């Protein structure tokens, strides 16, 4: 039994009368790719937002590396070692690709206003390190030649990649990928699949939300299926594929 990186116990999120996520319990073991799937409105993104601290779950608890993170602030949770990407790309538009990645490493540095004003040794060292690190990540993600382009000037596929690069800059233990293949064509999705595999090979633990079944079935070690906020199935790709409840949620009941 490997170490559990992230886990949720009975996570429930209500918005007024609407229960977006109900009593979801999940575990993400170290070094694995765990996916959450479900039809539109199933509560996948809401669950993500509970993990990252954008929402505080109405009930239940979330643990990261054995520490409870329920109710912590977004930036605190991120600093603990959770990197994420966004379904609707959220890059920093006034910054170059390189600077976007440098911001990703924000938590790794300490220099403040005084360091900036006086250009202290710490400032110089951290700036140098941040740039070097960011350039390495851009090389790794195949974005190096675009390092000085404005993030928003990149093509859609590259922007998605840059989001992952930015998330990697914080040396996260856990990567949350929110529909990374959304809007991608077959070929782009294929290279993304390979890339996510590589990330796993590098030792990252990944929690994935995705609509693209092929991608999910290809790379997931374990899958949780949500429907209208309720967990209806879990298991390996094969188990989930054959589960009648899952088929029903996606295709409807047989007449």
């Amino acid at each position: 039994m490997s170490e559990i990186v992230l886990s949720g116990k009975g996570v429930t999120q209500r918005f007024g009368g609407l229960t977006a996520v109900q009593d979801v319990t999940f575990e993400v073991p170290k070094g694995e790719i765990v996916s959450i799937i479900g039809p539109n409105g199933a509560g996948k993104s809401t669950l993500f937002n509970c993990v990252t601290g954008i929402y505080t779950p109405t009930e239940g608890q979330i643990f990261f590396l054995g520490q409870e993170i329920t109710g912590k602030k977004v930036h605190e949770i991120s600093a603990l070692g959770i990197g994420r990407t966004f379904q609707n790309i959220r890059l920093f538009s006034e910054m170059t690709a390189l600077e976007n990645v440098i911001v990703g490493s924000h938590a790794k540095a300490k220099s403040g206003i005084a360091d900036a004003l006086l250009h202290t040794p710490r400032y110089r060292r951290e700036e140098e390190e941040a740039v070097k690190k960011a350039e390495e990540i851009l090389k790794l993600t195949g974005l190096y030649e675009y390092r000085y382009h404005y993030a928003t000037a990149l093509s859609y596929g590259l922007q998605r990649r840059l989001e992952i690069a930015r998330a990697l800059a914080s040396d996260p233990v856990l990567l949350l990928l929110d529909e990374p293949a959304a809007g991608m064509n077959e070929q782009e999705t294929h290279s993304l699949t390979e890339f996510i595999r590589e990330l796993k090979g590098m030792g990252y633990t990944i929690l994935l939300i995705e609509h693209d079944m092929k991608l999910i079935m290809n790379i997931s070690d374990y899958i949780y299926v949500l429907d209208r906020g309720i967990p209806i199935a879990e298991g390996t790709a094969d188990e989930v594929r054959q589960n009648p409840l899952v088929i029903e949620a996606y295709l409807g009941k047989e007449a």
Partner: protein
Amino acid sequence: MIRKLISLWAKYEKWVTLVLVALAVLFPVISGFNRYVVNIGVMAGIYAILTLSLNMMTGYTGVVTLGHAAFYGLGAYAAGILNWRLGLNVPLTFIAAMVVSGLFGLLLGLTTLQLSGRYLTIVTLSFCEIIRILLINLEWLTRGPLGITNIKKANLFGFVFNTATKNYYLVLAMVLLSVFIVHRVMNSRTGRAIIALKNDETAASSMSVNVFAYKLRAFCISSAIAGLAGALYAHYIGYIDPNSFGFTQSIQILSMGILGGLGNIFGSIFGAVSLSVLPELLRSIGLEDFRQVIYGVLLALLVLIRPMGIFGKINLRHRRLQDSLQLAGEGEEAEA
């Protein structure tokens, strides 16, 4: 054409800056030490500091403020009162002005920075009004509507800034100091965090940026610099009253920032200088009656042609980096 010019400017940025600073240093000499002209220079410099500080709050952090004159006024009154009651002078009055304004910025930020967008803008507007009314009513401290008269000229360890030219150089030094502060802060980890949170708060906080804390820092730096401008004004003019720091002033500073282009240091200075000089130019050619009309036309043109302001969205460092890559690329092609 414009692209090329910007590339050239980016390439020789240091030289361009040096020439501009040299011109600024020589300005009183060029004007023949004309008191009237140098006086315009002093006021343009004070407005440049104010616009730089507004740029920090509005241009970089994205908080549109309609109350910047409040921090200007707080700085002026801090310096004025300390000089009048305790006979203090430069540099203590400058430091006190920055601290007082900065503290008020901290206070305002702590209580209201959870608000966003236009709600915060309305808060800054009312803050400015509150400060003005306080300055009028706290008569024991501020002499109310009478204002504080007879504030002594800046006196730095015995050197008295008693002419327009001497004050001009004092102001110029403070403009350069403000440029230095804004430039260094914005080109650092702190600056990147500030721009990130302006572009996207959710994404920034997901990158471990404490959005509230960084907004607060930007607020404090901005208000402290505005306070410095206030202290300069108080010592230079020698008389301050609450109505000098009201809504009209706030709008004046905001217009300068927007004209020059927010988020750009050069733009801030350009906006401040041009809108300080323009009314005097109009006066000299006998068009001062049409001042408001001309302002209106200019503003309409600006909004139509360049809504981001004349120098807005121009980032010379980025341009230089992008150009450097292009050059390298062409070089490789030539080799192949």
